[in-house]
């Protein structure tokens, strides 16, 4: 199943961004995927799809990224996007305590629905607005550690920490995937419930479900 090319392998990971409205999810993704920042862009309706190909330690990784809408109203459709995700980026705005609480409730929901099968990174965005900070770094880090999530501070505006954050998450998903594969090799014949899709470059392996795949 793994397509080995020159020693490296190809992976296809699904990543979902979650967090309150206006914390900068779209800004982060656009910064990462297109290296753009626009102080005025439109609010997200439901979810937008983007992708990015990267090379990490000789592994070719394709990130399929779902940037979801922050409004509470759309929350009911959240499962469609996080189901079968390999990673989640939970974003808050460091100037908005409320948005940090929202991250906590997402963590609860994700852990409950998906257990530890999903790699989490908690991201405090708008680090350029230090003077208006309402969520301390210590508090956020401590919480992230407690729930076994990575933690990063970013500024989509100044392009600080964005790439590092996505790379660290990818690394974690990669490690998990490899670990999982090693386990699977032990239990030959056993079907694991949710695994990373290892793909041939072109044809993506069809997985269960529809919204969840890729």
């Amino acid at each position, binding site marked *: 199943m793994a397509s080995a090319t020159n020693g490296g392998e190809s992976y296809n990971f699904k990543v979902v961004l979650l967090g309150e409205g206006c914390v900068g999810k779209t800004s982060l993704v656009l910064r990462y995927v297109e290296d753009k920042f626009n102080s005025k862009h439109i609010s*997200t*309706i439901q979810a937008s799809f*983007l992708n990015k190909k990267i090379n990490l330690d000789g592994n070719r990784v394709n990130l399929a990224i779902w940037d979801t809408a922050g409004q509470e*109203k759309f929350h009911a459709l959240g499962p469609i996007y996080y189901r079968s995700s390999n990673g989640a980026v939970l974003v808050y705005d460091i100037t908005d305590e409320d948005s940090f609480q929202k991250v906590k409730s997402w963590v609860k929901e994700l852990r409950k629905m998906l257990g530890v099968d999903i790699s989490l990174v908690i991201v405090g965005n708008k680090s350029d607005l230090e003077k208006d900070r309402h969520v301390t770094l210590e508090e956020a880090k401590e919480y992230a550690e407690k729930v076994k999530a990575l933690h990063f501070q970013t500024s989509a505006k100044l392009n600080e920490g964005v790439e590092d954050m996505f790379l660290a998450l990818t690394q974690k998903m990669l490690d998990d995937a490899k670990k999982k594969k090693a386990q699977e090799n032990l239990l030959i014949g056993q079907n694991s419930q949710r695994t990373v899709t290892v793909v041939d470059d072109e044809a993506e392996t069809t997985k269960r*479900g529809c*919204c969840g795949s890729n």
Partner: protein
Amino acid sequence: MDGENDKSSFWKKNVKTVPGRPSPKRDGKTSSKGKTPTSTSFQDFQASVSDAWDMDDDEFCVISGLENTKISKRVSQSAAINVLNTHRCTTEVESPPEEQVTTDKQLLPNCDNSAKVNRIPGRPKQLHCLNPPQEEDSESKLERFLTLLENPPSLQELCKLSWSGIPVKVRGITWRLLSGYLPINIERRDGVLERKRKDYWTLVEKYYYTEHDETNRDIQHQINIDVPRMNPSIPLFQQKTVQLMFERILFIWSIRHPASGYVQGINDLVTPFYVVFLQEFIPDSSSFETFNVTELTEDQRKIIEADSFWCLSKFLDGIQDNYVFAQIGIQKKVLQLEELIKRVDEPLHRHLKQHNVCYLQFSFRWLNNLLTRELPLRCTIRLWDTYLAENDSFATFQLYVCAAFLLYWKEDLLQEHDFQGLLLLLQNLPTQSWTSSQVSVLVAEAYKLKVMFADAPNHLQSNSGDS
């Protein structure tokens, strides 16, 4: 979703204080009263407002006891699970064992791959001679409008004429008439307009410029973060005065519709009305995109705002279930869209499915924002001509428009051979250079679909999980 009668689970946000949030606007005028409006006092107020509207014009969607409704974790979770199940069973079952619908089969003869003759490729051949209302040259059209509007027009005739596009000069008045805001009866018009405009400003005084309770603060917050991000490429919408007008319209609409409240995207639906009513006051030569609204008198601005509000309200009445909890109306329409495409263009449907594309992933936004996010503003306005002319059947017509829109891109979609290519295309369809003529093609195609399925009202339900 089995949402039809499920009014018990209307959405209510967790209410909590919002530290660090911009506080709601208080212009001092009435804030000293500091009274928190409740929906009860609002109903009282509503009852006391003498109303010029026809009977059903002003349904107030105040659901009794709403303010005490809490959605428990369990309920909201089970709603989420329902959502998942609905979409899982309709998407994972690749091909239903038997075609369930038999009655209307003969209506859909050529649902095969062969028909590639139309401008929109891959469409079934036409069954009857389906001639949607014709586009005509604008001069003579304007004249026909002027003649029609001279006397009290019959609404039917007005719809017919408007369906294929309304000239800018008469668009404002025609939209008011079509949305049922302006009475057909000419003698009544001035009185009604004056009263409704006054009513709007009374609502604003009473509910906008007062202390908000927590729910309303949440609404206000969401509106405040959305409005500045609206139409970023058009300078008009960056003006503070314009943004304040939108904020008031949206806030008043939201508190009058507590079952849905404000949903992201509704702001985009105000835009066409706003622009059309604004255009009535700006000189022919200047473009609205860069117009400075402070050049208008205060009275003029008040008219634009109040009329946008009332017309928006009428417009959204038919599609309110799009915006209630879990957006059941939209979910249903997504399923119907899928069903429709499956029937009229099986190859395209199969292509999407083969690459694991879910209709929800692209058409939710189409439906939630009525294509405003997919089309340039000038095209949206042209599309609204038809929507308003469709009147009560607009809610279903919208579905056919989405179907026609998807079919329009068939060739491009078939060129894409993976999920990513498809999704990126579907979410960024190249319509930048569209003009009203593409919209006319679009609605004409939608019209054909509508006629084709009009005799088979049940077919869309066949597989849409309306259990």
